[in-house]
């Protein structure tokens, strides 16, 4: 298996460490004030935390690109 394929952006649960695709795991359908809420629930332990979108997503992308460039100059 060669170079890693382009992957979906996954998140890692800060409580139990499970990595998962946040698609469809947002808490929004169940919360009455959730319109536009970016909180996501870990499928393994239910811990909720905000998704890294917007500025945080941009910063994460920047850090990952820097990390990748460092690993594969």
């Amino acid at each position, binding site marked *: 298996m060669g170079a*890693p394929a382009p992957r979906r952006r996954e998140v890692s649960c800060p*409580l139990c460490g499970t990595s998962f695709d946040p698609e469809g795991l947002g808490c929004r359908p169940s919360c009455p*004030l959730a319109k536009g809420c970016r909180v996501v629930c870990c499928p393994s332990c239910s*811990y909720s935390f905000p998704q*890294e979108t917007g500025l945080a997503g941009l910063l*994460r992308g920047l850090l990952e690109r820097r990390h990748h460039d460092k690993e594969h100059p």
Partner: protein
Amino acid sequence: MSHCHTCAPALEKKQVVPAGRSVILVGNPNVGKSVLFGALTGKYVTVSNYPGTTVEVTRGSATIAGEAWHVMDTPGTNNLLPMSEDEQVTRDILMSERGYSCLQVCDAKNLRRGLLLAVQLAEAEVPFVLALNMYDEALGRGIAVDHARLSEALGVEVVPTVAVQRKGLPQLAEALAKARASRFLVRYDDAVEAAVAEVVPLLPGHGGLGKRALALMALVGDESLAAQLAGRMSPAQLAVLDEARRRLAARYPESLRFVISRQRLAAVDRLHDAVLTRAGGTSLGSSFARRLGGWATHPVLGLPFLLAVLFVCYEFVGVFGAKTAVDFLENTVFYEHLVPWFDRLVRLLVPGGAVQTFLVGPAGVPFREHGGLLVGRYGIVSMGLSYGMAIVLPIVTTFFIAFSFLEDSGYLPRLAVMVNKLFKRMGLNGKAVLPMVLGLGCDTMATMTARIMETRKERVIVTLLLALAVPCSAQLAVIFAMLGGVTPVAAAWFAGTVLLVLFLVGWLAAKVIPGRGSDFMLELPPLRLPQAGNIAVKTLARIEWYLREALPLFILGTLILWGLDRVHGIALLEKLAAPVVVGLLHLPKEAATAFILGFLRRDYAAAGLFLHYEPFMKAGTMTREMNIEVTVALVTITLFIPCIANFFMILKERGWRTGVGVAGFILPFAIGVGATVNVLMRWLY
């Protein structure tokens, strides 16, 4: 991964037909099991509910290495000791089916969790093959699994795969044809092994799972298994089993489920560390980290550890965030520059007249002395935005940095385990602890997790505990900020009171929810030195979330106050609340509005109080009276009715009667505790 090629289709697909061999797919939730099932079977599948449940089980057919196979998918499971209906269905399928092989699908990025299931399949003597799925993503994260060594240790075939790209499937097909039982054996302590040896001969001999696995399940007192064994064992055999379980349980302070899981996890950890390497990781030295991790979860040693963590948070959030950062943003940025600049801008754009006065008040009058809509005593900019951006934002930002540090270091899950141990010693059902730990993130979301409790009574009690005494992250931040301004003794009064209430209510809850119940199972990630970049990203994500969620409510709250002020409603409100706020709690009359608006956001309420006492905190002129007032106000607000989001969630999850009942209990209870603290502090402080 030299033998994994991009594949030509190797597995023929056809309709579900009777087949000579069968394979059952098992794996943790979200590991790509269904994708692999689809790749094996194609579109001709049957989906049916497992008998007596609403859990769906999918079946299909495939031709593997020239032979027809029956393929069955099972619900995701983390453990063969079931904690949910889904997990029980998977365990029951493995127990009732005969002559099958298992294909365990594991997320290569979360190997430890996968190995926990693999060693249980080994214990069950089930022939199986381990697919390390999402292997490309693991490599992308610098995680490399020595699959040859893992295969040797387990004694079964281990195949790296990328199911979504059909990579590794031919190798998987080859491996499935020679699936065999694992020789990996977890050695438990002597007492457990002796009990297993005593129980094994009693167990019925015909089942999909081996006797050693069944003996361990029976010893931990798995109720769903007990019902099945009852029909297949004589009363005398059941009595011997019960006696062996009682004898073994008496040796440990914890439940047998916990004891056995802990010993199994230790074996999994050793295997995991031997086969996995992580590039660029900054784990603390492993033996030191394990020792530190052990202290952090210890019910006694964990307390000084927790106090040290709280002290550092207090210094960073309460002193640096609430004093230095708030002072700069509130006075320098907002009141010296932003508010006057905005005032001038509005006066420039809306020259003279009633509209200008309506928006920013009469010219030349300080904004705290008029009722302008944008700039005024209750102005959207001068109050709503300044509360949100200049007072609460710096406080929650410092708190979010500290909280992200705790998450990334691996301390947070250890705190959860330690709290779990404390609660269990009080006799509280282990399951009740999880929502309370999750409440530290967001109480509203944690209220939803109370669904895991089995009875309505249990769900109501957990909901009550959450709403009453578990502060969410934003509230915790302002608590730290307020405590930064009072004496350490007053801070200790606050912490002692809230903890006492939590444990008292927890103890009462334990009386109502008796028994050990299900244990709290949480995989502990290694203790690590957090990386600055990660903390920055997480903090930024939380700040964005806070701004989107809290700021509109701060503005709504300010508009309500502004409206009330216009009709002289605030004075009326303060007069109505005076008997409680002034008479009972001995707080300034202005605290009434803070309590009422705390229903929108608890941090909004605390921001108002913070602003009231801030000049004295900054000047170091807090009197004894003020220290008592802040402590009483904080205790009352912490225990006060939940924020509007949480309240609606309670109504939605538990129904309006329970919701109103919970609020109806909490309101007088919070005021009663506040009044008691007021009396005691005036006497003893």
